[in-house]
């Protein structure tokens, strides 16, 4: 029987969706799941994880400030202690930072941003993108423990009715520690996590016109704002919103590209999205080659009208 240790992030008393997806990936690959959590409120969250597919939960206690190196050392100890043959974290800012360290403690390689995980022999096989998704590699590992991160919005969270046994271990000291977090304005969703992403490009003509993008995102309610590199480099939008090969790779259920031509570096970052909509003045723009639905038209006319329609639909519930 396989056992996979999953690092579970949580916020405001609930596990993060990306972590539940990682548990779901482990369960779907036929493994038992041991969750590891840390930070204030971890105990309460740990107690609920049975319903999300975890058989056991280990709370790393003893320190208030998060230290990635101390946390990684403790995670690796949990992997060893339960004889697990897998370690997973979500491909989030925290998971991508933590998982390589856990892998190195175990002297195992790491497979990041996996989009498939399956049981194979005594271990696992995965699929992950290369060159930002221009191709997909199938990979296994000869290491003892498969260490991987799971791309957000790809795997389904697990349903499980059980209760998880909770245990506490004490964290050691770290060489780096988070001293403060400057929270972004409440309600603003992250482009990697959001189920819907509305992205704008140079076709919006002026930075002020990004208001149209923000309003459409607000009408959806569950949408984040994204951007092409052209507008990030022009200083219209922050780096954190850039989608593409040198920005973020996103896989939302719905991706709407507005005034974006669809350069290969941009497509690399969003082509695995569920449904892609493009709004562009130029019927020959390459973005239409990957779009499921396209509207040829001027963003300044189409977007406000679309926002109005979406707002109406959302108001009806």
């Amino acid at each position: 029987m396989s056992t996979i240790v999953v690092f579970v992030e949580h916020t405001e008393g609930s596990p993060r969706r990306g972590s539940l997806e990682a548990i779901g990936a482990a369960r779907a690959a036929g493994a038992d799941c041991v969750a590891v959590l840390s930070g204030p409120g971890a105990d309460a969250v740990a107690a609920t994880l049975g319903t999300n597919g975890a058989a056991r939960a280990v709370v790393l206690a003893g320190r208030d400030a998060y230290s990635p190196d101390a946390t990684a050392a403790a995670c690796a100890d949990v992997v060893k202690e339960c004889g697990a043959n897998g370690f997973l974290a979500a491909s989030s800012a925290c998971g991508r930072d933590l998982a390589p360290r856990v892998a190195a403690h175990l002297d195992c390689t790491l497979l990041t941003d996996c989009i498939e995980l399956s049981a194979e022999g005594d271990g696992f096989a995965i699929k992950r993108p290369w060159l930002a998704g221009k191709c997909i590699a199938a990979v296994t590992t000869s290491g003892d423990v498969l260490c991987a991160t799971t791309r957000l919005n790809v795997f389904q969270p697990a349903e499980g009715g059980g209760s998880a046994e909770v245990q506490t271990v004490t964290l050691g000291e770290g060489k780096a520690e988070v001293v403060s977090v400057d929270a972004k304005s409440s309600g603003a969703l992250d482009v990697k996590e959001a189920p819907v992403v509305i992205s704008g490009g140079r076709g919006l003509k002026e930075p002020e016109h990004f208001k149209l993008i923000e309003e459409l995102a607000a009408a959806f309610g569950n949408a984040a704002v994204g951007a092409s590199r052209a507008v990030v480099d022009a200083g219209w939008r922050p780096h954190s919103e850039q989608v593409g090969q040198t920005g973020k790779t996103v896989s939302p259920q719905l991706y709407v590209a507005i005034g974006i031509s669809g350069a290969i570096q941009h497509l690399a970052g969003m082509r695995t999205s569920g449904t892609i909509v493009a709004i562009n003045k130029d019927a020959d723009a390459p973005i239409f080659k990957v779009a499921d639905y396209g509207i040829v038209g001027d963003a300044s006319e189409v977007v406000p009208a679309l926002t109005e329609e979406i707002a109406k639909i959302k108001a009806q519930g």
Partner: protein
Amino acid sequence: MNIVACVKRVPTTDAQAEIAADGTSLKTDGFQYMISFYDEIALEQAVQTKEASGGEVTVLTIGPASGSKEVRECLAKGGDKAIVLADDAWMQRDCRSTAKTLATKLQELGAELVFMGRVATDRDNAAVGPMTATYLGWACVTDVVEMTLEDGGGTAKRETEDGVETVRFSLPAIITCDKGLNEPRYAGLKGIMAAKKKPLEEAGAEDVPNQAVVTGVAPPPERKEGRIVGEGVEAIPALIDALRNEAQVL
């Protein structure tokens, strides 16, 4: 301070991925190469750190013996010397193999502060920085967009889903650099001339066998044929209908 910038030679971002006959690798004949986008930021940060606090910047790469052109460019942009750990199969190395080899060399060099890219834009591992630091038992802060050094350590900011984290770290440390940390400079004529005289040392790369076994490479799943639903504002009802009834995302 003994500063090292680790840079990787990768295919340019406009490279197409064509699958080789063996089915487990990519054809490389059409590739042009560049220093990975984020490694330019790492190099710039190394040079700026030297300019502010003194020391020396070593440019370190595991790469092809023939690939010194890109490394020379790093010297033109302010690196003081370069070390190429020659390995023609550098792109096939898994992140563990790369990290262990870099860790050995960094230890040997007595590095105090190491800058790497957030991710190399070929295999997209985003793992070598924190793995190397773990093998060395050093501090590491990833995805850094702002940093300052203080006695024996420093603070760095990184962007997360929730906002901006401030992390305090001790030295020696590895910092992985994200876009926004600085604006990489261009190599000026003076820099290019100076680079010709800077030492570029070539050594064999330690052989650390891969654990990752690639069993196949395939094109990304074909997207089903899309369609233009119409022109201008009049097309909106057709789009809404498609999103609701076909795609079921509304």
